[in-house]
């Protein structure tokens, strides 16, 4: 078994949060000036081992995310490579103005890792779900928004952050274990969507762990001789407009599938590109339709919002009828 396959299997087995902690252990070996800040979430972020092995590279801020972004910006401004982490709603909306002023306006560079974004914590209610993070952050200049679909892609996101001029928000989604999307290595670049599967007539744009539902839907559609193209838009901002426009033009129908409100997220980003480039492809936006529902487990909520494999497959069927 190749090294990359072993890695894919390993990350898939432990899920994104634990993968984050493991990747940090690698990153710190390469950079002594790396420092991780958390707001009392070291266990949830898979960082307990990091915390005990690299005391000088770890800073506990306490449950105060606004302060965390400020402290992170101060450290980065003085030459440290800084990662912060908290649960996605608290890593983004709670400290949104600090993100705007310190990272957007001042262009101080840090990497924020939002844990358990989307609907995976549905049992805990919508205080802990995160269906607004992309929309809120997308309006702030000088910020990358990345939504990896699996552990391997998370690793690529974390390594790419260093070479970018901007602060980066990495949105972790999905549970544990995590379904594998890739079975071999591939080229990753911030801003560049990746074709996961070739098809015809229909193109699906998606990002994050929900791509596993998309791939399951693709399997269901095979039985009806329907074969959509699947594009992994891991980088929601920046986004290669030309490539998106190309895939839109090539297909009669397009779907955006996201674990986010359909307002402000991937669906909005794709629709904006279609409008700007004059593409007339009909776009269907699947995701949370601007509402808070009753809570429930991950699978239940995906079904309620029409983004589980069966709902996706049914939707595509009905579009093509």
């Amino acid at each position, binding site marked *: 078994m190749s090294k990359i396959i072993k890695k894919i299997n390993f990350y898939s087995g432990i899920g994104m949060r634990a993968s984050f902690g493991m990747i940090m252990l690698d990153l710190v070996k390469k950079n002594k000036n790396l420092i991780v800040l958390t707001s009392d979430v070291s266990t949830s972020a898979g960082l307990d081992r990091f915390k005990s092995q690299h005391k*000088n590279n770890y800073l506990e801020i306490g449950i105060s995310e606004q*302060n965390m972004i400020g402290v992170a910006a*101060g450290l980065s401004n003085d*030459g440290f490579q800084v990662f912060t982490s908290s649960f996605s709603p608290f890593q983004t909306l709670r400290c949104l103005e600090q993100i705007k002023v310190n990272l957007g306006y*001042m262009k101080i560079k840090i990497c924020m890792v939002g844990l358990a974004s989307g609907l995976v914590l549905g049992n805990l209610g919508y205080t802990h779900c995160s269906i607004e993070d992309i929309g809120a952050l997308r309006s702030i200049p000088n910020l990358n928004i990345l939504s990896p679909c699996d552990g391997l892609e998370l690793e690529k996101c974390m390594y790419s952050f260093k070479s970018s001029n901007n602060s980066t928000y990495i949105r972790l989604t999905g549970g544990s274990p995590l379904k594998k999307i890739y079975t071999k290595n591939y080229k990753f670049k911030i801003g560049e969507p990746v074709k996961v599967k070739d098809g015809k007539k229909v193109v699906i744009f998606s990002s994050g762990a929900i791509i596993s539902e998309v791939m399951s839907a693709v399997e269901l559609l095979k039985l009806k001789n329907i074969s959509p193209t699947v594009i992994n838009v891991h980088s929601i901002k920046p986004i290669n407009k030309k490539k998106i426009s190309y895939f839109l033009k090539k297909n009669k129908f397009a779907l955006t599938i996201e674990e986010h409100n359909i307002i402000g997220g991937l669906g909005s980003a794709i629709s904006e590109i279609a409008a700007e480039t004059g593409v007339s492809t009909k776009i269907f936006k699947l995701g949370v339709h601007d509402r808070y529902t009753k809570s429930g487990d991950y699978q239940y909520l995906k079904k309620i919002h029409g983004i589980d494999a069966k709902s996706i497959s049914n939707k595509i069927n009905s579009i093509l009828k």
Partner: protein
Amino acid sequence: MDINHIKILSKNVRKNILKASLEAGSASAHIGGALSSVEILSTLYSEFISFPEKKNWHDRDRFILSKGHACLVLYSILLEKKLITKKEFLSFEKNNSILPGHPVMNKFKGIEFSNGSLGLGLSLGIGTAVALKKKQKSNKVYVLIGDGECNEGSVWEAALLAPNLQLNNLTCIIDKNNFQQTGSNKEILDINDLASKWKSFNWHVEEVSGHEINELIEAFKVVTDKPKLIVAKTIKGKGLVFAENNNEWHHKILTKKLYDEAIKNLNNE
């Protein structure tokens, strides 16, 4: 220490503030809260904050103006210290200026961070102080916040953290002029005894008159193993007779007539 020199600097800084306010015209300026901070900055920049040559700029002490609306006091000091030019100074609030009504980060001009949204500066100061310690630098970090600014919850998040990190290279100064945008502290949100609150957070606390240079020097000189808070009791609009403790001058247009009167008063002091 040459206290007279600091007094002269303070007078020049006040004149600068008034000049820029006059030049801003109808754009208006935050005058009251700039004037209350004059002696604090004059003392700091005369005796405690040193600027190395540009090639060693990373070895400077840091001043963070968290109460960013009081930017005119900072710009005026930076003008006196020749870090900004007269032309730049007089471009205050003009189109395409590097000196708008709230400071924009410009390291080599002496503006460490962009501020203006209240409650952000102390956290940045903590991050900077941690970084300096990790790099084993002896430079100090000074953060000026307002008493009205202490309404912001983020100030208290930062106040709680700094002693936990034993940041004895960090000094926070509260310009306690007793007013905020639309009224007195007592009317808007009574913050009561600030010194006790910060002491209970485990800061070393000094309380001084924010216009008495001797007292300020002594407070800044105190060596402690904790982060230090200086409550500087000040008068909003200090030095501008018609503006002292008159909160209308929080943000206001300075007319030529009033400017002339104010300069005359300062010259007669």
